[in-house]
């Protein structure tokens, strides 16, 4: 199949092509489509760009190696987000364990966030970057179970049904978690509202 035709295919058609004919181009197109959304999701969840990049790459490797475990009854996006979510959770737990054993002297104040967004003017950028940092920091303070749901809903803009499938929960539980997460975030971001 030609590359031009492949680009026009849906995610599900592309993975079917990859599964049946082992078409590497189909895989590459899917990587191209999902690398940024997954990076955004994992970064907001972990708060570390390097770790997030590794997790997304690991997600893609898992997708490549376990392509046959995908069943066409589910949406491809749900499947790939599930893989990324699981890996992100594992990484989060690992980092948390490591933090318990090595409480560093720098504290959270000196953490660096690489946000490669240069669309703002320099004078505004500083204010915007600080604001983003505060939001990100607050987001990381939200309980893990609520945070994932909030990110998927408010940042990744997925439907409740998709989130429920990704997290393996009912839609009702997802809605509840999103509300609780937002409430926690609201408390943490009081000062930003006043600005």
């Amino acid at each position, binding site marked *: 199949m030609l590359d031009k035709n492949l680009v026009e295919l849906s995610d599900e058609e592309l993975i079917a092509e990859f599964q049946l004919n082992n078409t590497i181009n189909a895989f*590459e197109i899917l*990587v*191209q489509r999902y*690398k*940024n959304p*997954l*990076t*955004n999701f994992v*970064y*907001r969840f972990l708060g570390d*760009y390097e770790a*997030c*990049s590794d997790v*997304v*790459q690991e997600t*893609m*490797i898992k997708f*490549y*190696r376990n392509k046959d475990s995908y069943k066409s009854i589910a949406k491809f996006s749900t499947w790939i987000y599930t893989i990324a979510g699981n890996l992100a959770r594992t990484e989060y737990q690992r980092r948390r364990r490591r933090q318990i054993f090595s409480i560093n002297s720098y504290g959270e104040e000196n953490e660096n966030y690489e*946000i*490669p*967004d240069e*669309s703002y003017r320099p004078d505004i950028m500083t204010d*915007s970057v600080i604001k*983003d940092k505060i*939001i*990100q920091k607050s*987001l990381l303070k939200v309980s893990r179970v609520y945070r994932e749901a*909030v*990110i998927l*809903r*408010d*940042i990744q*803009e997925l*439907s*409740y049904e998709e989130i429920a499938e990704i997290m393996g929960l009912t839609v009702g539980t997802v809605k509840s978690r*999103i*509300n609780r997460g*937002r*409430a926690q*975030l*609201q408390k943490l*971001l009081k000062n*930003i*509202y006043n600005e």
Partner: protein
Amino acid sequence: MPRLEDNNRNEKVTRLLKDLPKINAPSNFENELSLKINQSEQKKEKEYWFDKIFSPTIIPPAALAVTAVIILFLLRGNVSDAEDPFQIIPKLREEQNLMQDQFGTVLDKIIADETKRLGKSEKSNDQTSNESESKNDFYKGDSNITEASSFENTSLERISVTTSNYLPDQTIIMSGGLNYKIIRVGEEERKMIEMLREKINIATDYQRNN
């Protein structure tokens, strides 16, 4: 739009989160990914061979073969090439001490007789041929024979026999080929032995009578 379903009280939070800048993957994402995939493929190939060698289907026959080899080894180990120690003729001790009791037992008398006989044969050899030659031929350079021939005159004498100068079998090994060690016994010990012998004789006589 699904966002309309959300609660209005969280509208500000939702807006803030939505306005967050989108984080993109690094520019070399694909290159790194292809590199990692190649590495994982190589690793997978290694794992494939490892799994093939140590696969569950191969392990049971391999274990069986190893067990068979071990059993064979153990059985072979039991079949020793070494001779049965009970079948080996015991070697003579390098050094033996012979004792001559003044009063003598049967054994002692035999030893004394043997020594006498050797002494006589030595004398006869002396008469017929060269003295030194005959001694060397018969006793193979034994210098202790003179000492042995003279012990009958003393109460307790000792003959030292070594592998280099050992006497013919009939002179050393008595009583059915057993290898005796004769020790020097003092007066008191000798009396004690005599007493024990008498007791044994009495006991033997008693048994015979009954």
